[in-house]
């Protein structure tokens, strides 16, 4: 194929991925860098790309400091307990203290935020969530990015980051290809903000065949943020912290608004409450510090998300599935019924389609719940991602190397799912992280840190050959066989994805093994992933669309490898309900109250694993006060 090489030179800030994090970066960069050249490279069309493509019905991270509702340190406590103690509290605090200003901007831009008619405040869904009419959330946010950036390149799949040839471990841009024209794109840039989203489809999904696209996180979340950073040699953290979600069965409709706003609840096949039954045994596994239902009852301290999954998984395995969401009561109220439906139509249309197809009307029938396949992401109730520097005024030395949200490669920044240790950022927090990264990137440039960047032609040429190799391979070998997709010389991206999902599912704790793994299994998994990497050299793409899938697969594979390495390293079950290490079932605070950090050597492919300190920023005053105030009561 005759494809051109297009070089975009002298960029100051290149934003890779224009989802919520990337849009935040592009927007904010213009204020701090009024003279700077800001460019976005987005795989899809920024108007409807990323996890928010179909909209959202809630903003899940809003403090409400202005109404006296919450302070940032409250949010740190909350996220810390939900993640069983393991978060980067400096990054979380920093995101939380800025997130309200982001949400107030969204409102100014036209996002319809629901109001509480009594108080005039935003209508709360839960302590941290506010309700919105968010069908057009993404186009509204994208408009801000489009207003700010010098240029938005849509339909560019970024495949590699470019490293500086003049100075070790410094960023110099990125390369990729245009999914429409097939052109090779070279972006030479002083800084790069990676905001290319989390990873779905690393594990085998519950849906099969035509339905395989019905996953909870978008099928186009290809783990590119992780693939790009790991391949460039950036350090990663908490990659073992994959997430499993409790969702409406098959459609994967979110349950947040149902639990929090509609006050629905769950029961087993006999109509019994089952959750608390599993807690005494579980408490022995994780300790009272992490599971104390009495205390949770009296304070705002939640029962960690993963532990609630644990109860569902065990109840179903005990033969008392299905788990039902009791909607029949709430749905008798026409207003609540409307909220229930619009919640899906604005955020997971597939769930509404499913109920229509199967004649399930939650008003007259309680729908089933299930647990999903695992996902890898950094912004939901989980915190996988890159190891980033924190802000100047908060972070201890181990967490601070000069510029907020800068990775361990100079000039490389991250936002949203890309940043590790900052769970519960969600859409608003991801946008906020983009803003923080952009301000820091401008500062980095103004401090002269990006002077003298050089990219030699060889690097640019090598990448080009690598990117288009799958199409070359197809051209050479397609006539070796009569027809069809079975070749002795190549596999196609779909076949590769099937293999990745099967092996991750079986060896790394997916659905079919009830999220269970151990050291032996993980080692076999790693071996198979290594062999698969060799086969990825022999992947073939019959057109540019398949080339896109091939690179998505390569990023997914690298993410999967890193997840497996981390899961092997952390010899404990820190998050029962997300995954279990069968050979180390107990949470082990003595040895593992630490963050895990990895680095893959780009030359040798070897991983170095280390433990990093888990610092606690805020105290437990709130809990202590609650304990004092209310004497222990039996739970009703």
């Amino acid at each position, binding site marked *: 194929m005759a494809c051109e090489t297009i070089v975009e030179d002298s960029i100051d800030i290149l934003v890779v991925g224009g989802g919520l994090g990337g849009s935040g970066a592009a927007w904010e960069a213009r204020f701090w860098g009024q003279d700077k050249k800001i460019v976005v490279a987005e795989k899809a069309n920024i108007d409807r790309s990323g996890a928010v493509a179909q909209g959202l019905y809630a903003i899940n991270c809003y403090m409400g400091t202005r109404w006296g509702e919450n302070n940032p340190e409250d949010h740190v406590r909350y996220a810390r307990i939900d993640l069983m103690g393991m978060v980067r509290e400096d990054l979380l605090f920093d995101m939380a203290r800025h997130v309200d200003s982001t949400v107030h901007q969204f409102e100014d831009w036209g996002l319809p935020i629901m109001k509480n008619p009594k108080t005039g405040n935003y209508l709360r869904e839960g302590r941290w969530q506010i309700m919105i009419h968010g069908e057009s959330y993404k186009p509204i946010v994208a408009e801000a990015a489009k207003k700010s950036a010098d240029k938005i390149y849509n339909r560019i799949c970024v495949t590699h980051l470019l490293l500086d040839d003049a100075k070790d471990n410094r960023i110099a841009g990125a390369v990729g290809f245009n999914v429409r024209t097939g052109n090779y794109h070279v972006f030479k840039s002083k800084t790069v903000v990676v905001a290319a989203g989390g990873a779905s489809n690393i594990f085998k999904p519950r849906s099969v065949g035509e339905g395989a*696209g019905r996953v909870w996180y978008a099928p186009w979340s290809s783990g590119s943020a992780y693939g790009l950073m790991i391949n460039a040699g950036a350090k990663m953290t908490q990659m073992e912290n994959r997430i499993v979600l409790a969702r409406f069965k098959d459609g994967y409709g979110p349950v947040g608004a149902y639990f929090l706003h509609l006050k629905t609840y769950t029961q087993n096949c006999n109509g019994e409450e089952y959750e608390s039954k599993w807690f005494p045994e579980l408490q022995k596994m994780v300790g009272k510090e992490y599971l104390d239902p009495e205390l949770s009852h009296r304070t705002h301290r939640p029962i960690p998300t993963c532990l609630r999954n644990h109860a569902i998984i065990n109840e179903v395995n005990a033969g008392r599935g299905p788990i039902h969401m009791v909607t029949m009561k709430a749905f008798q109220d026409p207003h609540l019924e409307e909220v229930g439906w619009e919640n899906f139509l604005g955020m997971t249309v597939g769930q509404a389609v499913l109920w229509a197809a199967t004649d399930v009307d939650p008003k007259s029938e309680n729908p089933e719940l299930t647990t999903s396949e695992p996902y890898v992401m950094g912004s939901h109730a989980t915190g996988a991602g890159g190891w980033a520097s924190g802000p100047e005024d908060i972070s201890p030395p181990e967490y601070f190397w000069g510029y907020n949200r800068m990775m361990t490669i100079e000039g490389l920044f991250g936002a949203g799912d890309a940043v590790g240790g900052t769970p519960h950022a969600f859409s608003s927090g991801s946008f906020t992280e983009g803003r923080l990264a952009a301000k820091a990137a401008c500062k980095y440039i103004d401090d002269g840190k990006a002077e003298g960047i050089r990219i030699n032609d060889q690097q640019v040429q090598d990448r080009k050959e690598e990117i288009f190799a799958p199409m070359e391979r197809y051209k050479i070998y397609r006539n070796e066989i009569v027809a069809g997709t079975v070749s002795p010389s190549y596999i196609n991206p779909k076949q590769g994805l099937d293999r990745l999902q099967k092996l991750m599912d079986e060896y790394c704790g997916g659905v079919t093994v009830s999220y269970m793994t151990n050291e032996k299994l993980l080692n076999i998994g790693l071996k198979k992933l290594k062999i698969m990497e060799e086969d990825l050299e022999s992947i073939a793409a019959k057109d540019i669309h398949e080339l896109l899938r091939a690179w998505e697969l390569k990023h997914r594979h690298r993410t999967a490898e890193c997840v497996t390495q981390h899961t092997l390293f952390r010899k404990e079950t820190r998050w029962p309900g997300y995954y279990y290490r069968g050979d180390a079932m107990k949470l082990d605070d003595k040895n593992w109250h630490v963050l895990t950090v990895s680095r893959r050597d780009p030359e040798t492919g070897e991983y170095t694993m280390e433990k990093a300190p888990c610092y606690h920023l805020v105290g437990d005053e709130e809990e202590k006060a609650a304990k004092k105030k209310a004497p222990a009561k039996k739970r009703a």
Partner: protein
Amino acid sequence: MPTFVYMTSCDGCGHCVDICPSDIMHIDPTYRRAYNIEPDMCWECYSCVKACPQNAIDARGYADFAPLGHSVRVRRDEEKGTISWRVKFRNGTEKNFLSPITTKPWGTGYPELKDEPAPSNEMRDSQHLYSEPKYIRMDDGDVHTLESNKLKMKLGVYY
């Protein structure tokens, strides 16, 4: 399947091709009309459905769990700032919903950041982002710092 395109309604304008986040709406070279080339990578996000000026695209529930005979139709109107949905069950029950999508005429509520007064060095060195502290507490407070909340980083390291 997720999405499919009615042959007689599509005029091949390409809006759906332009918007699909999964890059799976393509124009068929023979018929010059759009179709979904990879249903198993479709999220049923309805981006293409909403974008089609001819209402030529529809979605049919995923075949691995959804029976035939239902429909969920949508109309998104940027002029009016609304979105309306019609859900038809297999058994014929119908439900209709209408929501706002914006509170402002499309694309008007954004300041021009390049025309804002340039940030001072002091602002650059502070923890403030654009529009802060004004936008955090609407004028009656500032960003939180450790000192402002009498917090101390607890330097107890756990191994």
